[in-house]
């Protein structure tokens, strides 16, 4: 079935930055990829006794945002701030402001749980007599837990005045930001978009995935025959997107296509045949104007749950066969939920830039029932086109095609 979409103008990632459990900035993140060093460790977050591993970003506990940003203070925004400081990102945004003006740059962020950790802590500090929440919390809810907090915070930090919103479609949130950004740029409502995603550890997701019996006790093992669940992580990533017709350097990484779909099947189980995933991947190729044979690497959603990896394999195999290399990078970062889209898009950008296909970390023996070509060891060699898949709760799917501009 041909995709029902038109090819799009590529969007250049003029600048980007990423913080994960592997380190602050794209340098340390890429080094960990190359050296196959995982950021996952036994859970040491708050007082949580769950037997699981997490990809915690170090240093967020003792951290101050400074007076002007104090009202935004919460783990999620601290992580966002840390991300904004890396890789010269603020300088690149300042240059874009010079080029276009503050009203012509949009901010589209993704997160799944925003600053919910503040609400969890506030509920523990309720007045036992009146049930009231503490005022340190109620006066700052808007700037911490509310779903728009991250968008407000990033817009404030960067001094931008264009359209802004936070997309929250569970795990696909910060993949979807690219699609909204692409549309805003195409209709000319702005000249550049800051896309990004930040999700941080909290009790809700740790106990929630534990209740769903989806947490592994050991570091997650995507595509492994003995995989037994995911590891949660946290991350912040940002990219400055501009039309390649305006900013185009040979070898720059660009968003070539995107595809979105839903399963319409179940809130937390994927469609058994991967129907939604297939639809998203096909549309991403259609917008990129590429045939499946032109994709060299598929960065899998690869959460390491039994169901996800097996259904995703069906979808990927049905489109690509066993030709492109496939791997999941969740073994490095953990599943960063609402930040997974931007994390894996930017990891894909690093792979394109440096000519590296990461082999699936922690995958000791590939599940024999998977038919795609799952890579276990890193592979060096030039790379031109990558597909990155993200699927989430509510059956929300998004695939992105990234490539190098020629």
């Amino acid at each position: 079935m041909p995709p029902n979409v038109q090819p799009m103008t590529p969007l250049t990632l003029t600048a980007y930055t990423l913080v994960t459990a592997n380190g602050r900035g794209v340098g340390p993140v890429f080094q960990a990829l190359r050296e196959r060093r995982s950021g996952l460790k036994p859970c040491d977050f708050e007082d949580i006794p769950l037997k699981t591993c997490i990809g915690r970003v170090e240093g967020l506990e003792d951290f101050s945002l400074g007076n002007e940003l104090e009202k935004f203070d919460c783990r999620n925004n601290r992580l966002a701030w840390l991300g904004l400081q890396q890789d010269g990102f603020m300088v690149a945004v300042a240059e874009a402001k010079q080029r276009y003006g503050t009203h012509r740059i949009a901010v589209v962020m993704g997160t799944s749980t925003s600053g919910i950790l503040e609400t969890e802590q506030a509920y523990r500090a309720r007045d036992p007599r009146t049930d009231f929440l503490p005022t340190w919390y109620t006066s700052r809810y808007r700037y911490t837990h509310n779903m728009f907090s991250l968008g407000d915070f990033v817009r404030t930090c960067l001094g931008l005045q264009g359209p802004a919103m936070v997309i929250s479609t569970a795990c696909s949130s910060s993949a979807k930001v690219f699609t909204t950004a692409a549309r805003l740029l195409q209709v000319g409502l702005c000249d550049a978009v800051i896309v990004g995603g930040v999700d941080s550890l909290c009790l809700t997701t740790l106990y929630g995935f534990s209740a769903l019996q989806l947490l592994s006790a050991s570091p997650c093992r995507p595509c492994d025959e003995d995989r037994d669940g995911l590891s949660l992580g946290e991350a912040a990533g940002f990219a400055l997107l501009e039309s390649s017709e305006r900013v185009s350097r040979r070898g720059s990484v660009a968003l070539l296509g995107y595809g979105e779909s839903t399963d319409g099947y179940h809130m937390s189980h994927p469609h058994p045949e991967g129907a939604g995933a297939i639809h998203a991947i096909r549309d991403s190729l259609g917008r990129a104007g590429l045939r499946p044979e032109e994709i060299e690497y598929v960065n899998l959603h690869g959460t390491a749950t039994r169901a996800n990896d097996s259904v995703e394999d069906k979808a990927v195999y049905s489109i690509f066969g066993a030709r492109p290399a496939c791997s999941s990078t969740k073994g490095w970062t953990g599943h960063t939920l609402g930040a997974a889209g931007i994390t894996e898009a930017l990891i894909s950008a690093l792979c394109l830039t440096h000519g590296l296909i990461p082999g699936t970390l922690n995958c000791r023996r590939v599940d024999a029932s998977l038919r795609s070509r799952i890579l276990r060891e890193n592979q060096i060699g030039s790379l031109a086109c990558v597909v990155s898949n993200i699927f989430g709760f509510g059956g929300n799917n998004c695939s992105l095609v990234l490539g190098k501009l020629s």
Partner: protein
Amino acid sequence: MKVAIHGIGLLAPGLAGWDASRTVLAGLRLFQPGAVPDPEAVLLPPNERRRSSDSVRWAVEVAQEAIGQSDLDPREVATVFASSGGEMGVFDQLCRALATPERVISPTLFHQSVHNTAAGYWGIATTCQQSSTALSCYDDSFAAGLLEAITFVCVEQRPVLLVAYDLAVPAPLSEARPITTGFAVALVLAPPSASSLASMHLRLEEAHQEDTSSLQDLALERVRLDNPAARSLPILRAIATGGSHRVTLSLLDSQQLVLDLDPCRN
């Protein structure tokens, strides 16, 4: 950018559906906010309805009303769900449980806590596999949702169902976010065509002083200011009144949506 409005859904105390509310919105009948509605959302499979939160049922109720007017197959319509806070009632239950020493939470409650819960249930109820986005922009969530929906229609040249909803926030979270009246609205938007309810032209401008969005009816104006989804009321009033109208909606402190509404068949 121009789109056609093919269907409208509405639910709030005193505003029980679009057709029943038109005379109130047009100022021909007094707005009397009565009992809080308890919508059935009949489209939801019984199992899902039993488990679903109030906000899911409110969102699905207005979505099915709007789609019903449009003659479109819901499986062909992409969705944009806009809500300031999402599942505030679920957060209350989750955070209460997480504040106990046992910290036992139900897996169902957990997957119902995501911002795209209503979007997900709509997809399950209709088996729709089109794109679906859920977003927030605090008090301007409706304006941001409208921007996303119109942009989608113009770029993809396909219809979109926009649903904006926020429910009354339960105590003690209401101290943090005092929304006292539930409100849900849905618009089916599509590329311009003659057979629609109205057409809507959008321009995005830098904010300036002129604000035409307040309502004369003071009780309705209180609802508009109370609930982010009710910021849609000036659009609904314009369509209910008939004739051509300009409505401005603020988008954050720096920009505004300027919307020119024109009737088609009414």
